[in-house]
C-alpha cells in the first residue's frame, strides 16, 4: 500500500520537492538558531567552570588600587591563606586581552586551575610555568585569535615579550594566565598585586594590623547566562517564527497531496483497506519524508549556525563581554532534537489532513474544492479568533512588564494578524468587486476571492515574514539613529587617555595643561558598588560645558547639573532608573568605603548596551567620599585636527601605551562596528525568514495551478485568449501580494513598537525613540511583489502553453 501511496510522489516530483524543502528549511532555521544558543550556553558553562581568577573571595585595597606584594607574605605568616594575583589588560596586535598573574602554589583549589598540575597542558608543568622564561597559558580560541602557535611569545603593545604560549582548555577564552612574577613585569607593576585571593574554606579573622583591606566576594555564578538570556530569547523567537513559516509550507503541501489523492484513498478503502490502516500508512509515509527532510534540515542548520557564529560571538562579546567559542561543536543531542522537531512539526502540520483521511467516507464523491467552499465559515471564525488575539496582545503589552509577557504579546500579535488576514483580504476583495464595472473585472475579483482560502496560508506566511522584517528593520534603524546620536553626545571629548597609575595621571595632566591646543582636560574616576541589589558603576566626572551641552539626557530635574556639580545630586542610567523605580527628585543611598552616600537623582540618561547600572556624580565629591577611587579616564578637548599629533607626542614624551589612548573617531568607529555586528544575525535571520515565505508562496501557487484549469477553461471558451488569461493570473497574484504587503506595514510598525517599547525595556532596560523608515517599506513591498511575480510565473507559463485541446477536455473530464 505504501508503494501505491508513494507512486503519487513519483508522478509529482515538484510537490515532493516542495514538501521536503519546506520542512528542511523550517528545520534548518530552527536548529540553526538552537545550535547558536547551545554553543553560546556551552561557552558560558565552560567559562563558569574555566579559570577566571575571580571565583573565590579576595582581599583588595579598601581605598582602591594595588596592594604591596609584601602584604602577601605578611598575611601568610599570620596564618591567613591568601594567594596573590595581579590583573590587567594588554594589547596584542591591536586587540585587548585580559592578563592575570597567579601564584600556583598558594592558589586556592576552589579557584579551579588544575592545569599546572601537569594534566592538561602536556609538558607545561609547574617548573616551566614559574621559572624563566615561564609560560603564558591560554585557551585554544585565544591562540587562534592571536594567530600564534604554542611556544610563540606574544608581543604586547608596550613592547613586552610575554612568556611562550601554552594551550590550556582550562583557561577562559580571552584570558592570558602567567605566573605572577612574569605578569607583574608584563603589566609594568613589579612588586604589586591587584588582590589577594582567599581560600573560601577559611573561617579565621584578619589580623588586627591588616588595615586598609576589604573583602570582596565573587559574583554569583551563572551571571553571564542571566545577562545574555534576553539575547538568546530573541534568537529563539526568531527561530520559532521561521519554523512556523516553514510549517505553513508543509501544511499546504501535505493538504494538497491528500486532496489530489482522495480518489486513490477512496479506491483503497473500497478495496478493503481499513481507515486506521490507511491513516497509519499515510503517517508512515509522512514520517519517512519528514526524517529525510529533517536530516537535510539539521545539516543545513549546522551550516547556518557555522556561518552566523562569528557574528553571534562578536555580538555577545560586544554586548555583554561574553566569550563564546568560535568553533561550532554540537553533540548528538542537538542532531536528535533537530530531527525530532522536524518530525513533530510535520505531524502537526499534517494533522488536519490525516484526520480528514481517517474520516473519509468510502462513498463520498471526489470534490477537490469542497474544503475551499467550507472554508468561508472557517475564515469568519478565524477573523473572530484574530480579533481576540489582537486584543489579547494589546492587553498583554499594556499591562504586564516582563520579557515573557512581551514575547507572548508579540506571539498574539503575529498569530492574530495572520489569522485575520483572509478575513481582511476577503472584505477588501468584496469591496473591490462592488466597484467593478466590466464583467471580466467582476469575475477577476470574485475569482480571486474564491482563491483566497487556498492561498491564505502562503499569504499569511508572507504577511508574517514581511511584518517581522519591517518590525525588526524599524527597531534596528531606530536603534541605529538613537545610538549614533547618543555616541556623539557621549563621546564629546576629542581623545580619551587611560593612565596606568596616579603618578602617570598627574604627569599627564601637567603635560596636557602646558599644551596650547588642549582646551580642557576632563578627568574621571570609577568604582563599582551596588544599588538595589544590582551592580552599579559609580563614575565621578568634572563639571564642564562639554557635558552640559552634549551629554544625552532623558530627563533632568530643574537645576540638575548644578546639583550634581555641588555634590548633592547624581545622574543615573535609564537601566538603573527602571530597575530601581527611580525618577528625578528621588533619593538614593550609595554604599561607599566611608559609609552610605545620600544623593538626589538629578537626571536620567540613556546608557545603551551596559548590562550594569551607572551613577554619575561630581568628581570632587566622589574623591571625598571614596578616597583612592580608581582612576578611569582622562577626556581631552582639543581641536580635532590636533589630536593625532597630540597622541603621538604623548607616546613619545610620556611613553603612554598606545593601548591606553584613543581618539574620538576611533572609539566611535569601534562602537559602531560592535553595534553593526550585533544586528548582523538579526538581519540574516530576517532575510532567511523572508526567503522561506517566498518559498511558501511559490509552493502554494504551484500546487494551485493544477486546479486552476477547470476554472479557466470556461473563460477561454468565452473568448479570453490564453495570453490574456495568463496576464490576469499574474495580476491576481500581484494584487494579493500587494494587499498583503500593505497590510504588513501596520503589522510591522506594531511589531517594532512592541520591540522598542516593551521587549527592549524588559530585556535590556532601555527604551528607544521609534523612527519610521518608509523607504525600507517601499523596498520590501517591491520585494514581495517580485516574489509573487516569480512564484506566479511558472504556473502562468504552463497555463499559457496549455494546448487548447486540453482546455476543451476539461469540460469532458470534470468530475
Amino acid at each position, binding site marked *: 500500500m505504501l508503494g501505491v501511496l508513494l507512486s503519487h510522489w513519483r508522478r509529482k516530483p515538484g510537490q515532493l520537492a516542495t514538501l521536503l524543502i519546506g520542512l528542511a528549511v523550517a528545520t534548518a532555521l530552527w536548529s540553526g538558531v538552537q545550535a547558536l544558543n547551545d554553543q553560546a550556553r556551552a561557552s558560558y558553562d565552560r567559562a563558569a567552570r574555566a579559570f577566571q581568577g575571580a571565583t573565590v573571595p579576595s582581599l583588595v585595597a579598601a581605598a582602591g588600587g594595588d596592594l604591596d606584594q609584601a602584604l602577601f607574605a605578611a598575611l601568610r605568616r599570620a596564618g591567613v*591563606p591568601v594567594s596573590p594575583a595581579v590583573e590587567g589588560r594588554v594589547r596584542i596586535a591591536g586587540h585587548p586581552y585580559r592578563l592575570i598573574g597567579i601564584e600556583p602554589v598558594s592558589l586556592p583549589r576552589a579557584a579551579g586551575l588544575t592545569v599546572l598540575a601537569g594534566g592538561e597542558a602536556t609538558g607545561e608543568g609547574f617548573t616551566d610555568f614559574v621559572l624563566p622564561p615561564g609560560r603564558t597559558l591560554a585557551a585554544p580560541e585565544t591562540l587562534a585569535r592571536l594567530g600564534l602557535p604554542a611556544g610563540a611569545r606574544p608581543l604586547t603593545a608596550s613592547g613586552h615579550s610575554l612568556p611562550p604560549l601554552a594551550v590550556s582548555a582550562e583557561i577562559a577564552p580571552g584570558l592570558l594566565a602567567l605566573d605572577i612574577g612574569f605578569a607583574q613585569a608584563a603589566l609594568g607593576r613589579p612588586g604589586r598585586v591587584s588582590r589577594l585571593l582567599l581560600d573560601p574554606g577559611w573561617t579565621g579573622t584578619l589580623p588586627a594590623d591588616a588595615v586598609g583591606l576589604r573583602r570582596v566576594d565573587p559574583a554569583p555564578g551563572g551571571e553571564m547566562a542571566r545577562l545574555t538570556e534576553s539575547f538568546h530569547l530573541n534568537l529563539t523567537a526568531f527561530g520559532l517564527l521561521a519554523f512556523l513559516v516553514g510549517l505553513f509550507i508543509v501544511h499546504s503541501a501535505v493538504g494538497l497531496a491528500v486532496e489530489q489523492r482522495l480518489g486513490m484513498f477512496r479506491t483503497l478503502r473500497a478495496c478493503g483497506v481499513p481507515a486506521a490502516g490507511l491513516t497509519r500508512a499515510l503517517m508512515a509515509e509522512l514520517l519517512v519524508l519528514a526524517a529525510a527532510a529533517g536530516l537535510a534540515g539539521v545539516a543545513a542548520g549546522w551550516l547556518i549556525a557555522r556561518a552566523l557564529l562569528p557574528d553571534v560571538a562578536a555580538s555577545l562579546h560586544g554586548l555583554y563581554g561574553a566569550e563564546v567559542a568560535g568553533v561550532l561543536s554540537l553533540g548528538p543531542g542537538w542532531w536528535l532534537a533537530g530531527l525530532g522537531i522536524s518530525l513533530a512539526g510535520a505531524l502537526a502540520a499534517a494533522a488536519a489532513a490525516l484526520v480528514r483521511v481517517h474520516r473519509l467516507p468510502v462513498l463520498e464523491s471526489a470534490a477537490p474544492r469542497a474544503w475551499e467552499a467550507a472554508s468561508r465559515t472557517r475564515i469568519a471564525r478565524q477573523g473572530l479568533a484574530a480579533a481576540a488575539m489582537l486584543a489579547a496582545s494589546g492587553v498583554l503589552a499594556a499591562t504586564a512588564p516582563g520579557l515573557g509577557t512581551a514575547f507572548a504579546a508579540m506571539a498574539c500579535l503575529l498569530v492574530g494578524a495572520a489569522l485575520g488576514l483572509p478575513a481582511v483580504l476577503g472584505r477588501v476583495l468584496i469591496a473591490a468587486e462592488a466597484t467593478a464595472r466590466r464583467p471580466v473585472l467582476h469575475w477577476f475579483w470574485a475569482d480571486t476571492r474564491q482563491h483566497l482560502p487556498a492561498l491564505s496560508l502562503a499569504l499569511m506566511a508572507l504577511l508574517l515574514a514581511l511584518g517581522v522584517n519591517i518590525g525588526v528593520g524599524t527597531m534596528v534603524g531606530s536603534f541605529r539613529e538613537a545610538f549614533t546620536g547618543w555616541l556623539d553626545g557621549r563621546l564629546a571629548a576629542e581623545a580619551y587617555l587611560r593612565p596606568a597609575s596616579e603618578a602617570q595621571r598627574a604627569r599627564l595632566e601637567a603635560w596636557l595643561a602646558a599644551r596650547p591646543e588642549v582646551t580642557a582636560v576632563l578627568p574621571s574616576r570609577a568604582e563599582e558598588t551596588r544599588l538595589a541589589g544590582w551592580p552599579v558603576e559609580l563614575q565621578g566626572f568634572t563639571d564642564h560645558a562639554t557635558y552640559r551641552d552634549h551629554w544625552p539626557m532623558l530627563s533632568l530635574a530643574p537645576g540638575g547639573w548644578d546639583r550634581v556639580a555641588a555634590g548633592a545630586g547624581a545622574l543615573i542610567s535609564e537601566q538603573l532608573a527602571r530597575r530601581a523605580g527611580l525618577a528625578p527628585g528621588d533619593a538614593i543611598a550609595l554604599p561607599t568605603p566611608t559609609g552610605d552616600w545620600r544623593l538626589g537623582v538629578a537626571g536620567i540618561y540613556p546608557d545603551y548596551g551596559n548590562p550594569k547600572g551607572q551613577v554619575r556624580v561630581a568628581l570632587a565629591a566622589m574623591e571625598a567620599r571614596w578616597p583612592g577611587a580608581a582612576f578611569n579616564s582622562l577626556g581631552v578637548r582639543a581641536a580635532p585636527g590636533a589630536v593625532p599629533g597630540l597622541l603621538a607626542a604623548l607616546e613619545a614624551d610620556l611613553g603612554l601605551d598606545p593601548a591606553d589612548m584613543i581618539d574620538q573617531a576611533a572609539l566611535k568607529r569601534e562602537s559602531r562596528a560592535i553595534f553593526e555586528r550585533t544586528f548582523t544575525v538579526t538581519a540574516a535571520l530576517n532575510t532567511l525568514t523572508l526567503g522561506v515565505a517566498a518559498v511558501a508562496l511559490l509552493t502554494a501557487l504551484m500546487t494551485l495551478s493544477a486546479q486552476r484549469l477547470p476554472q479557466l477553461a470556461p473563460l477561454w471558451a468565452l473568448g479570453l485568449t490564453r495570453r490574456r488569461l495568463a496576464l490576469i493570473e499574474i495580476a491576481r497574484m500581484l494584487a494579493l501580494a500587494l494587499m498583503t504587503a500593505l497590510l504588513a506595514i501596520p503589522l510591522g510598525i506594531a511589531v517594532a513598537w512592541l520591540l522598542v517599547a516593551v521587549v527592549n525595556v524588559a530585556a535590556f532596560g532601555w527604551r528607544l525613540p521609534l523612527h519610521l523608515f518608509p523607504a525600507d517599506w517601499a523596498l520590501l513591498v517591491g520585494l514581495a511583489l517580485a516574489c509573487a511575480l516569480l512564484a506566479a510565473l511558472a504556473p502562468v507559463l504552463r497555463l499559457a502553453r496549455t494546448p487548447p485541446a486540453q482546455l476543451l477536455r476539461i469540460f469532458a473530464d470534470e468530475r
Partner: protein
Amino acid sequence: MNAERRRLIRALGALALIPAAARAQGFAGLGATAGGFAPVLPATRLAFPADHGPHPAFRIEWWYVTAVLTDAAGADAGVQWTLFRIALAPPGGGGTGWQTPQLWMGHAGLTTATTHRHHQLYARGGVGQAGVGLAPFRAFIDDWHLAETAPGRGSGFGPLAMAASGPDFGYALTLASDRGVALHGIDGYSVKSERGQASHYYSQPFFDVAGSISLDGAARAVTGQAWMDREWSSQPLDPDQTGWDWFSLHLARGAKLMVYRLRQSGGAPYVTGTWITPGGHPEPLAPGSVSVEPLDWAEVAGRRLPLVWRIALPGRGLEIETTPLNPQSWMATDFAYWEGPIRATGTHPGRGYLELTGY
C-alpha cells in the same frame, strides 16, 4: 591533601620529594650529580652556624625535628616538624623574587596513643613566605616556625621556639640544649650505601622540650626530648632503592642511637647508623656491626607495614625491641609515609621515632 597538589608536585619532574626519596637523595652516587647541582664531597668541612642555613646549590635539604613527649598525666605523645627545601633548578637557573627556583614544603604531625594528626604546607621561596635565616636561626613556612629565641654557642643552637598547626591540632614547644651538634659519617660526610652515595648529615639529639600540644582545641602541657636532623644532597634516588626504615632513639643512661635500613630490590638491605655517647661524641656504625629486623607487621592505610622491630648492636651489648605508640601514625601527605613515636625495651630501654617510607 588533594589531587591537584599531588599532581603539582609530581610535575616537579625528576625530583623525588617524599621523605623516602628525600632521604635516599643522600644515597645518590657521587659521580651522578645531576644537572649542575652541587655535589656532596668528602673533603667538605661543615661550619656553624653557616651550615644551619640553606644550601640552595644542592637539590634537596631539610630541617627535621621529632619530639617524644609526656603530659602531666603520664600519657605519651610525639610531634614532628619538618621543613623541606627543593631546588627547581640548579644554580644559575631561575632568578630572584618570584623566579627564585626554590620550593618549600612543611610537614607537621602530632601523635598520641589514640590519635594521629598531620598537615602539609607549600610555599615558594624568594618572597618571604618560607625560608631559613641565620643569626638568629629561623626556619619558617607560613605561620609555622622553628626559631632561635637567643643566640647559640659553637655548633649548637640557642633555645628554639617550635610551632605548627593544622585545622584540628597544633603545638608550641621550646627546645633547649647546651650541646654542639653530632656529625654523622666522617665529619658530616655520610656515606649511605655500598654504591658510595652520600649526603651532608648532622644531628642535634640532645634537646630538652617543654610546651603545650593541642588536639581539637584542647591544650595540655608536655615535656620530653627532641631530636633535630639536618641533611642535604643533590642526587636522585636509584630506581631499585625502594624505601627506607629509619630510627632515632633516646636511650636510658643518655646515649642516642640513629640507625637506618635502606631497602633495595634484589639485594640485602644496607644497614648503618651512628652511636652518640651521652657526652655527645658520635661513633659511626660500620655496615654489618648493627642489625635491624622486622618482627611484626600491621595493616596501615591499606598497606602492610613492619611496626615491631628488633635492633641489635653486639659491640655495645645492645639488643632492643621497638613498638609504636600508635600503629596508625600514617602521614597521608602528598607523598605518604609512616612517622611516629616508638618505645624500646630490652638491654637499653628508651623512646624515639620511627620513619617507614616506600611501602
